[in-house]
């Protein structure tokens, strides 16, 4: 049953034969024509035509005829656009293709609406804050372009110009409160996630349900809770620490949930591998699972931070409002960025409102940076390294190999010396001796 194919069975070829497809192809020299996939020119022109037609119809009805108000114009235009596009495709295509195109244009416009609303929020904030923000780009001498973030509002009256006053106090408030909140939530959040994802059991299910319920907790309730428990009972005054506690209550479930999701992605066989090597459960978690899931956990922490930074309602109830810099989170009011924005905009004065929007823009920038960081770190899979890093590792690998060889050599010498005092000290010389003997 084993070994080579007997020669005689090869010689006596059976009646049925095999096919060699490449032989037939050699006669055909030209490449096959490509089939195009995706939107054709016809499709794109239909979309463009329908857009122009829809907008034209809207302008006609609202402006020229005055049948509808200008507010209705976008909606009417859109309806006309869809109608015209559907008719155009109906002329050129049949049943399923028309339905397919109709729905895809509806869904795509839904996506446009979502992105556009986000864009409007961002652009509106930037525009309203522009009188303040423009100083960043105005390279005036003797004027710090970042003065808005480096001064506070003490001594700045409601009528003062925009070149004085800033939000340093709120930046410090946010940094300190988020810092304290992180100190509280990171250990709690990560250990809870480990408990949920790795230890498990019936109690873990209860905790998971609780955490999920907590993510839906209205933020004002968290503020009231801290107000009742900490401020009314202990501190008797608004302070930054109480605000940090309220933010923690809101950050914690978000962190636990996303860390739990990340940890549940750990392949079960990694855990088994650790345990099978004689590791304790804790050692496996600490040395295998957490390093493997480092990026997922970092993402969880950053996402929770981004949520925490923007919280306004709990801070409103707990931190108090001030416009002077207060470094001490445990005494007196300490305002953070979202609260400062709220106070500015509520004031009703144009200069203050501009400062409010600039504060909001600052907040947007911070959250944007945090999300970009989360994406960058979250995208890194453990063990996946860039080409440059691989080259560096190749270099250090050579050094490691040299060191390993030297260690082996040292131990060889020690072993040889320990076993037989007369043995040559250098195993290499023994090797050389062998070769010379052989030569002779």
């Amino acid at each position, binding site marked *: 049953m084993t070994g080579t194919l007997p020669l005689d069975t090869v010689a006596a070829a059976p009646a049925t034969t095999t096919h060699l497809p490449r032989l037939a192809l050699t006669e055909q020299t030209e490449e096959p024509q490509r089939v195009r996939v995706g939107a054709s020119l016809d499709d794109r022109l239909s979309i463009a035509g329908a857009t122009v037609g829809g907008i034209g119809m809207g302008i006609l009805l609202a402006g020229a005829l005055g049948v509808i108000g200008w507010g209705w114009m976008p909606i009417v235009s859109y309806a006309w656009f869809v109608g015209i596009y559907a008719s155009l495709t109906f002329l050129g295509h049949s049943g399923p293709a028309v339905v397919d195109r109709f729905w895809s244009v509806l869904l795509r416009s839904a996506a446009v609406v979502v992105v556009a609303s986000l864009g409007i929020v961002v652009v509106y904030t930037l525009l309203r804050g522009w009188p303040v923000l423009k100083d960043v780009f105005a390279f005036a001498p003797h004027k710090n372009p970042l003065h808005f973030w480096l001064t506070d509002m003490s001594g700045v009256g409601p009528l003062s110009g925009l070149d004085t006053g800033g939000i340093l106090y709120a930046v410090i408030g946010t940094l300190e409160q988020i810092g304290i909140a992180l100190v509280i939530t990171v250990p709690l959040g990560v250990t809870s996630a480990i408990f949920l994802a790795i230890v498990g059991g019936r109690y873990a299910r209860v905790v998971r349900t609780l955490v999920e319920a907590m993510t839906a907790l209205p933020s004002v309730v968290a503020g009231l809770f801290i107000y009742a428990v900490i401020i009314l009972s202990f501190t008797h005054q608004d302070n930054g620490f109480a605000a940090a506690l309220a933010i923690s209550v809101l950050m914690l479930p978000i962190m636990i949930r996303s860390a739990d999701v990340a940890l549940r992605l750990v392949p079960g066989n990694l855990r088994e591998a650790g345990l099978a090597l004689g590791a304790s459960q804790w050692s496996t978690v600490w040395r295998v699972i957490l390093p493997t899931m480092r990026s997922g956990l970092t993402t969880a922490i950053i996402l929770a931070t981004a949520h925490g930074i923007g919280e306004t309602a709990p801070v409103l109830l707990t931190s108090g409002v001030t416009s002077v810099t207060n470094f001490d989170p445990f005494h007196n009011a300490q305002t953070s960025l979202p609260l400062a924005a709220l106070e500015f905009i509520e004031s009703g004065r144009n200069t203050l409102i501009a400062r409010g929007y600039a504060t909001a823009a600052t907040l947007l920038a911070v959250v944007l940076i945090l999300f970009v960081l989360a994406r960058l770190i979250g995208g890194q899979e453990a063990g996946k390294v860039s080409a440059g890093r691989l080259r560096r590792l190749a270099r250090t*690998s050579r050094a490691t190999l040299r060191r*390993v060889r030297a260690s082996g050599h040292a131990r060889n010498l020690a072993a040889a010396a320990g076993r037989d005092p007369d043995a040559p000290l250098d195993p290499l010389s023994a090797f050389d001796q062998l070769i010379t003997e052989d030569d002779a």
Partner: protein
Amino acid sequence: MTTTTFDRTVAPSDPYPGVSRDAAAEVRSELFGESHAGELVADSITAWFGERKVLDRVSLDMKAGEVTALIGPSGCGKSTFLRILNRMHEMVPTASLAGEVRLDGADIYAPAEKITAARRNIGMIFQKPNPFPAMSIYDNVVAGLKLSGVRANREQKDVLVEDSLKKAAIWDEVKDRLDQPGGGLSGGQQQRLCIARSLAVSPRVLLMDEPCSALDPTSTRRVEETIESLRGQVTIVIVTHNMQQAHRVSDKTAFFLASLGTPGVIIEHGDTQAMFDRPQDQRTYDYVNGVFG
């Protein structure tokens, strides 16, 4: 006709010929005490998952330094049996068992025995290669030290890495990339890296749960050669679906079978040659000859 002249190119290009067996053994005894291939005895093992009995009074003697193959169709309890041998069975919350597993005479399930010690002495290789992705090849090999809290200096670790990788027959392939992540290796190399990682903590027994089922024929062959080279140094128990593999690598073979609705049992066990050439039970004969399964 051309004449060939022997040209002496065997002189090593690197200054050190590599760590010797004695030196490596010395380092191992410094770190783990004396260790040798252990005799593993499973005595009347019965296992349950919840109310379902999956093994019924299974006894098997795995002699020191030998390779024992466990064969049988899927669901016959051979993997469960293997996982009982190093207490991985307990990881399933509903699992329970009766009977004794003795390593060199000491019951690993005795209350005084530490579960981590049992698992360090009885290593395990899994179906799917599972190197630690966040660690380099070097760190993967010595991961067991850190994980089980054994302290070693740099020199001892270096010796251990070289010796374990050599024993797992993968040293030449990875020696130039020790700092690179283990996940970048091919499947077969990863599996041998896992074998090296297990060997680094000097186990007395090595359990292998279908170690080649995720590998291509070439890698399978390398792993089998590794098993061959470990014979005598460590007791090996290997679960395999591949009858030829059992035939090639093992000294002893045990045939597991579970009929419909009944727990798994050993139908027949003994010398591999006898099991394949002249089994006494008809079912064994049918299975090893590919009539079913």
